[in-house]
């Protein structure tokens, strides 16, 4: 066979295409890509939710999917959360793999019975004989004056209840990988995506909401935190926007001679104790920062883990930054006051290093 240079080149490129192409995607595009790839793989997957069809999800999670899969698999629902999220349970028990979107996590109130008394408990109550492979997508977070009923994260409310995996990735790469893992998991997974990290044109534009995402299908574990910045003086633990603020704070702390390590928690439940303890063993100091309420929240959980299992490493009391047990206020000045930011983190770290 004669040497065919053209063909070789094409083959080489094809190989590249399947293995190594990485594009910069926004959070919402990363979500949509994960959903599309998984829906192509498994015909049992379908999506239900309000405005997930032609609109593409209010926060862009299902962009373009209606055009690709049609209304049989991308189903707009009435405003009937108890109905359609409850229906996901019934369909999952019959062997389908429903993905349902609760438009804002704040709307959990109208459907929590289905989520927490049924979706989360049936696998256990059935002794494992009923599997509910459901992904509950839901948008979280504030910072744009959407007030008390549309700005919460409620990480801890879901993390508190046994029977659901709860994840909240920050960066597009993790969003895709963790969403694929969530879809393949045989357990109910609550997949929280932060509105501001979706990279939507009509919200604040953040560098963090755009990042490299491999085109290939890959999975990211649902139970591992990630060290997103290595440091030796203090550990800052965040989730989603608080990870972004922690990284901002870490950059500024360098100017003050403080080398901060930043952990993106990613998984609310189960929580990755190992990564937290390993980091605090190195730094001896910890700030936990949360865009959820203070009491009984992530800051309390992480602090309790470190206090019980890593006490000997601590050189200073753990600092907890979270929303000070008030509903999220509307007025910008009030909302800014209650949601922690990089300056609050810097202050907390500075107090700690002089302890």
């Amino acid at each position: 066979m004669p040497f065919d240079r053209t063909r070789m080149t094409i083959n080489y490129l094809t190989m590249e295409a399947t293995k190594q192409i990485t594009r910069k995607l926004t959070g919402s595009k990363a979500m949509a890509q994960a959903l599309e790839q998984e829906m192509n793989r498994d015909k049992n997957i379908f999506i239900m939710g309000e405005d997930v069809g032609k609109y593409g999800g209010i926060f862009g999670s299902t962009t373009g999917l209606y055009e690709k899969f049609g209304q049989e698999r991308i189903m707009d629902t009435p405003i009937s959360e108890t109905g359609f999220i409850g229906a996901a349970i019934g369909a999952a028990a019959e062997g389908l793999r429903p993905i349902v979107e609760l438009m804002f996590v704040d709307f959990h109130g109208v459907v929590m019975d289905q989520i927490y008394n049924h979706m989360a408990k049936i696998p256990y109550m059935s002794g494992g004989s009923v599997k509910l492979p459901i992904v509950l997508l839901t948008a979280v977070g504030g910072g744009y004056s959407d007030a008390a009923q549309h700005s919460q994260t409620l990480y801890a409310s879901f993390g508190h209840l046994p029977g659901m995996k709860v994840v909240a990735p920050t960066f597009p790469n993790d969003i895709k990988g963790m969403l694929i893992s969530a879809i393949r998991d045989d357990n109910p997974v609550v997949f929280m995506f932060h509105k501001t990290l979706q990279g939507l044109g009509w919200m604040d534009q953040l560098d963090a909401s755009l990042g490299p995402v491999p085109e290939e299908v890959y999975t990211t574990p649902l139970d591992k935190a990630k060290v997103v910045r290595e440091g030796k003086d203090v550990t800052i633990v965040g989730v989603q926007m608080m990870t972004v603020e922690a990284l901002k704070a870490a950059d500024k702390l360098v100017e003050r001679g403080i080398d901060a390590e930043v952990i993106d928690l990613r998984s609310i439940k189960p929580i990755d104790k190992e990564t937290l303890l390993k980091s605090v063993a190195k730094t001896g100091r910890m700030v936990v920062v949360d865009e959820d309420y203070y009491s009984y929240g992530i800051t309390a959980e992480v602090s309790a883990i470190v206090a019980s299992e890593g006490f000997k490493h601590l050189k200073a009391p753990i600092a907890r930054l979270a929303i000070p047990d008030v509903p999220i206020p509307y007025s910008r000045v009030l909302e800014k006051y209650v949601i922690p930011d990089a300056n609050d983190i810097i202050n907390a770290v500075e107090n700690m290093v002089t302890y």
Partner: protein
Amino acid sequence: MKKNSKQDLLWIYRKMKTSRYFEERMEKAYLEGKQPVFNIGAGPVPGEMHLSNGQEPAAASMIVNLTKDDTVTATHRPHHQAIAKGVDLKKMTAEIFGKKTGLGKGKGGHMHLFDPIVKFSCGGIVGAGIPHAVGAALANKKKGTDRVAVAFIGEGAVNSGAFHESMNLAALWNLPLVVVVEDNSWGISVSKKNSTCVPTNDVRAAAYGIKGYGVRDNDPLKMYEVSKEAVERARKGEGPSIIEIETYRYLGHFQGDPELYRPKDEVSKLRAKDPIERLKKYLLEETLASEEDLRVLDQEIMKEVDNAYEFAINSAYPEPEEALEDVFV
């Protein structure tokens, strides 16, 4: 409240115009700081903004039959209902601007307006106000008053569990409740056809053994007539009812909504049948008002609304630490 129909119709006209002018100013105020690049969190009025332009008859033609002591629960699109109910316009506007002088001291925002003086409330969760109205009606009945409660909802809320539970309770306990369904055809991007198994929701009244009324084509006069009957029935202890009015949503679900889901000419067709213009024409034809009367009225309305905006804009923002107050009273 009003002695005769002429007074009532002028009152309805006034409230509809006030609401329309208020919303037109809000449309502009909301866009401040959001151009050329739209950012939902920017400008003097940040966050979501749901405007009611076109839906005025649903509110004004119902609330004309109510007094200050009757209760109204409203929706996430609450301005027309609030204005008709007589919510303090200055404080309401200040709230929407996030000011200390607002109804909720800047804590609530446009979807969360509370004015207990005129028994008005609203909220951001679809359908959630219906049981509150049931509770108000229950209280009215327990107290032995002839006060009524009116829940305004959208056609989308009829498919929530809260609606069905509430209607059964209201019927079971024969409560003085009227539910007004503002059918603007769209639940954000989902059409009524794609969300609702029956063409009109007034027929659902049969499921609760109560009275159902339908008002076609956003008609302020028909809405007035039907509401009057429903409110009178409730006051006399004849039980709850449901009114569905076909109304128009001129703008997006929220400001900034790309509206790719609806036909491009839908809104222009609706605007050509504007209910305020239709009522104006009726008032003139029936010689219930002259052009001059309405001109004077319009001036008064603009002044009232302008004053409210001026008050809001000139008011101070709360101090940051005030975020910590009012969790417990």
